[in-house]
């Protein structure tokens, strides 16, 4: 029934081969774009078919072995694919978004050098991501894991002539190495420790079935899961390995949308969800995950307050939202985490593509006016609402979604996470507080972005301001689809407390994912408990938080610019009073905004630049230094070499013969 599952990764791979090998000869951008889009669209169609089939199916877990990979002793490793509700959701997410974004790129990348290269990388990425998601064992997943990493570096460094771009590619490279090493070490330890219990396996289904053989909460499980989590922090940009993601914005915007927002960076979350049985056995690791996730959510949000580059704000926001997902994983809210992963993919892809549309327009205008201003700086924007209406509305809806306004998608998912972080058996009010504060800042800085970009008066250079066009349909069509998803996508996970009031509306995603997570949650007594009234109260609180955040942003970036001028003209006395007495704005600025901004900047400087970079560089320095020291042993003199051989022989003989 599911035996053609391998078609899903195959199509983009074929697309990659065609564009990669023949793209240089084809030259025609339309054809290259069509091949790239068609390849991934085909696998989207197949994914839909299997997804629908799985919905009807009573048996929810299907493994398909394409061919045997290798067998070592009792260990049998296959090129196997696994279709279960979790991977089914993920392939829908990956193929769907990849299709839209590849289509979008046809317009966005128009005229770029190496057009074919871009599309072949994009298809290769989709292939690797699908392998990661569909792999039925940890090794196939690792193949995908490395593959997506590779494509990510290549695409970040796409504008390799630009030093910052190639530096960013290198940074992503180095940081991810650390994480991948953790993944591999975890895999080895898992393989070995299960082997000690007589089960040689790395298949996910068997790991889940045999995890109980390891000591519950024991040292081994904790170390293994921590190693895996280290892998996740690298790929998913969590503290302390998050620094590469903001720099990764040097890549083309579709790449930021697809790889660095919607799909690849969520691989860490997916991996934890995939091995939920194992992670649930290590409460200590879960606690670490929850704390790191919460801290990242909060920390990245503070940094987001102080950025002026439109893509950088979105990048820090992505880090922050990924933090939410890890927070969810850490408190055992696996369903909520995956749910947020999906809604985040919708709205963040839409936001990135929207920002791409803005940048595209700004770039066009500057190009037209022969100016060299930064098309990504929000301080040069403003008032774009009128110029780019479609972009504006899609962007607005997505921003409402990310802020958690009721009935937009992230309202459901984020609220679910916050509720679990408070009420789960593995939750804590401090975790909730971190999440709630981050939500406040998220609403604030996202609307700050919207107000600075689309509202107010146009701050663009006068020579360029009239040449900002709305983007063509090839760009706006994906935006509209994604905005629709960002708006309504949340309906797949309406919580029970709400659902029962609107005609027993089911929590579709929870029911669908139940075969994956329910067993674990039962086994380890992970549940959210609390009265419906409490849940409603906290739902209300989070809505309140979102509204406050938006209001603050409105006050400072929308209201303030016009208000002073009007008041001064009409009521000079009142003006003075306001000026001298109230000082509300100054108060806000001095007491809230500036310190927070300052804190954000300082934190950014300390952690992002000094500490983490220093750490990364420091490790490299130590390693290199010892390499240099060792090199001095290579003197080049034959007698020294002979001497060292004799010394070696003498030492060995002394140890073994005269001992």
């Amino acid at each position: 029934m599911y035996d053609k599952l391998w078609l899903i990764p195959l199509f983009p791979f074929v697309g990659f081969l065609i564009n990669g090998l023949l793209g240089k000869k084809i030259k025609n951008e339309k054809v290259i774009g069509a091949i790239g889009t068609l390849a991934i669209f085909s696998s989207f169609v197949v994914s839909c078919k299997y997804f629908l089939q799985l919905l009807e199916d009573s048996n929810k877990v299907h493994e398909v072995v394409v061919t045997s990979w290798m067998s070592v002793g009792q260990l049998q490793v296959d090129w196997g694919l696994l279709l279960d509700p979790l991977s089914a959701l993920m392939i829908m997410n990956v193929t769907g978004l990849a299709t839209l974004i590849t289509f979008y790129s046809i317009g966005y990348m128009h005229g770029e050098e190496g057009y074919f290269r871009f599309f072949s990388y994009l298809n290769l990425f989709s292939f690797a991501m699908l392998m990661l998601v569909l792999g039925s064992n940890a090794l196939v997943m690792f193949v995908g894991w490395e593959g997506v990493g590779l494509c990510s570096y290549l695409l970040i460094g796409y504008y390799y002539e630009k030093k910052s771009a190639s530096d960013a590619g290198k940074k992503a490279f180095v940081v991810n190495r650390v994480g991948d090493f953790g993944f591999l070490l975890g895999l080895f330890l898992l393989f070995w420790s299960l082997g000690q219990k007589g089960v040689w396996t790395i298949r996910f289904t068997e790991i889940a079935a045999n995890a109980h053989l390891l000591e519950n909460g024991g040292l081994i499980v904790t170390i293994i899961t921590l190693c895996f989590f280290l892998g996740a922090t690298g790929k998913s940009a969590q503290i302390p390995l998050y620094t590469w993601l903001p720099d990764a914005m040097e890549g083309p915007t579709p790449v930021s949308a697809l790889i660095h927002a919607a799909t690849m960076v969520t691989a860490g979350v997916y991996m934890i969800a995939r091995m939920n049985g194992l992670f649930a056995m290590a409460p200590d690791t879960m606690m670490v995950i929850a704390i790191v996730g919460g801290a990242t959510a909060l920390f990245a949000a503070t940094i987001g307050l102080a950025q002026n580059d439109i893509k950088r704000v979105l990048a820090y926001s992505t880090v922050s939202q990924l933090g939410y997902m890890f927070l969810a994983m850490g408190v055992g809210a696996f369903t909520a985490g995956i749910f947020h992963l999906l809604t985040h993919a919708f709205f963040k892809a839409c936001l990135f593509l929207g920002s791409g549309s803005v940048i595209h327009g700004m770039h066009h205008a500057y190009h037209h006016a022969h100016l060299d201003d930064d098309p990504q700086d929000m301080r040069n924007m403003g008032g774009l609402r009128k110029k780019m209406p479609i972009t504006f509305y899609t962007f607005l809806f997505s921003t409402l979604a990310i802020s958690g306004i009721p009935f937009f998608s992230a309202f459901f998912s984020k609220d679910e996470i916050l509720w679990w972080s408070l009420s789960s058996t593995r939750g804590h009010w401090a975790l909730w507080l971190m999440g709630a504060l981050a939500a406040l800042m998220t609403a604030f800085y996202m609307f700050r972005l919207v107000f600075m970009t689309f509202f107010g008066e146009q701050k663009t250079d006068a020579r360029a301001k009239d040449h900002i066009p709305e983007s063509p349909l090839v760009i706006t069509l994906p935006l509209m689809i994604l905005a629709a998803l960002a708006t309504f996508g949340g309906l797949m996970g309406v919580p029970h407390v709400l659902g029962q009031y609107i005609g027993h509306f089911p929590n579709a995603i929870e029911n669908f994912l139940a075969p994956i997570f329910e067993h674990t949650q039962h086994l380890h007594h992970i549940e959210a408990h609390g009265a419906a009234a409490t849940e409603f109260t906290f739902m209300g609180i989070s809505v309140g938080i979102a509204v406050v955040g938006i209001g603050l942003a409105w006050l400072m970036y929308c209201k303030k610019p016009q208000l002073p001028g009007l008041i001064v003209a009409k009521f000079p006395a009142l003006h003075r009073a306001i000026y001298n007495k109230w000082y509300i704005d100054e108060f806000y600025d001095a007491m809230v905004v500036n310190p927070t901004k300052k804190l954000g900047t300082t934190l950014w400087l300390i952690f992002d630049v000094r500490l983490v970079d220093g750490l990364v560089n420091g490790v490299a320095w130590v390693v290199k230094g010892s390499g240099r020291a060792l090199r001095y042993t290579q003197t080049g003199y034959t007698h020294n070499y002979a001497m060292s051989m004799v010394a070696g022989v003498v030492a060995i003989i002394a140890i073994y013969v005269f001992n």
Partner: protein
Amino acid sequence: MENLVQTAMQNVNFAAIMPSLVLACFGMVLLLINAFSRRGATAHVALISLVALLTSGYTAVMGWNNPQAGFAGHAVLDNYAIFFTIIFLIAAGLTILMSDSYLKREGYPVGEYYTLIVFSTVGAMLMASGTDLMTIFLGLEVLSVSLYVLAGFFRGQLRSNEAGLKYFLLGAFSTGFLLYGMALIYGVSGTTNLVDIGAFFAASPAAATNPVAIAGMLLMSTGFLFKIAIAPFHMWAPDVYEGSPTPITAFMSAGPKAAAFAALLRIFLVSLGSMEGTWSSMLWVLAVLTMITGNFLALNQDNLKRMLAYSSIAHAGYALVGLVAANEIGISGVLFYMLAYTFMNIGAFAVLVLVGKQGEENLTLQGFAGFGYKRPLLAVLMTICLFSLMGIPPSAGFSGKFFIFAGALDAGYVWLAILGVLNSAVSLYYYLRVMVFMYFKDPEEDFEWIQLKPGATICIVLSVIAVLYMGIVPSGVMSLARQALF
């Protein structure tokens, strides 16, 4: 005396050395062809060498699963010998493929080059099929003497001279240790036959703890470890590898290394199994030392040839892990890894051969800047080889490391496996640097258009296909490696 002749005649079994016999005959023919050829004409010699390797390979493959012993227990052609024979033949064949254009470019179109490669391959094959210390020593000498000459083949280049001389001096030095060790083992056991030595030590356990026997074992392994370039006997390797002609470096880091492994494995497992406690603890330390030394030395190299040379030390360290494990997975893993390493390393070297300019001026990392965009296809092939060297799935290098480390885990050497994985992680750094230069750097000067030479191109493509094949479906080769165990 009549009796002696009869037993000698009965024991003659050419089938037991058929592949090396065929190759040796071809070698002599090649020698004569060289003598009668016009100066500077080498293409036909290369071609005949390839035919020789193919013929020899054919006779080897035909002997699969049909073990032949001969010459009074001095040589066998079992699956084990055949597996290694194929590795040597592949290494030699790929090397010859990439050599022709290279020799012309460097100004040494001399046919003896190929003859020497053929003869060194004969030596390697004798080492793999030798079941007597004398046969193995004979093979080692045939192999080494040819290699000394090949290392110093570029007579006009000082560095090549230096490489040849250093290799010769230190090689002779290590041979001394080897022979002394063999003499001590003979002194204790009274025989040079591997099986008989094994039987002797099994029958008298006291002899296995005899200091003379242990000293013999240690000295003998020193000789082989020198050839494999295991720390602290590795110091010759970087200088020799850097100075030798690039294809010869590729060959040396694959073929002879595998030959020394073949002999070492056979001696340790067949003859000195009763001393396993001693040698495995020694090799444990040396393996770790080697991995660390090789990797850390490679970190700072800006010259790709030298970097690959250092890293080949580290790779020998990984392979040694399999011998320490000394179980089925580990040993068959070593066999697998030797084959995998032959492909991936020679593939990478072949790219160097193509990219290098006359006098080897272009082998620094800088020379690879922007390579990924100027020559995307070649860069992709290089990337695959590098990935394999790093041990990233699905590549032959990954499967090999996986088997070896799995063997170590299975035998209970957890820390060794972890150190191995750690070292692989370190090695990523310098391999990835090449990729960083290929994909993230702008070429500094105008990129000289590389001409694709058919031989080298075939070599690279074949290597990459094999690397991918052994990475995606390693079970086929792995089951062959398993059948090759004795």
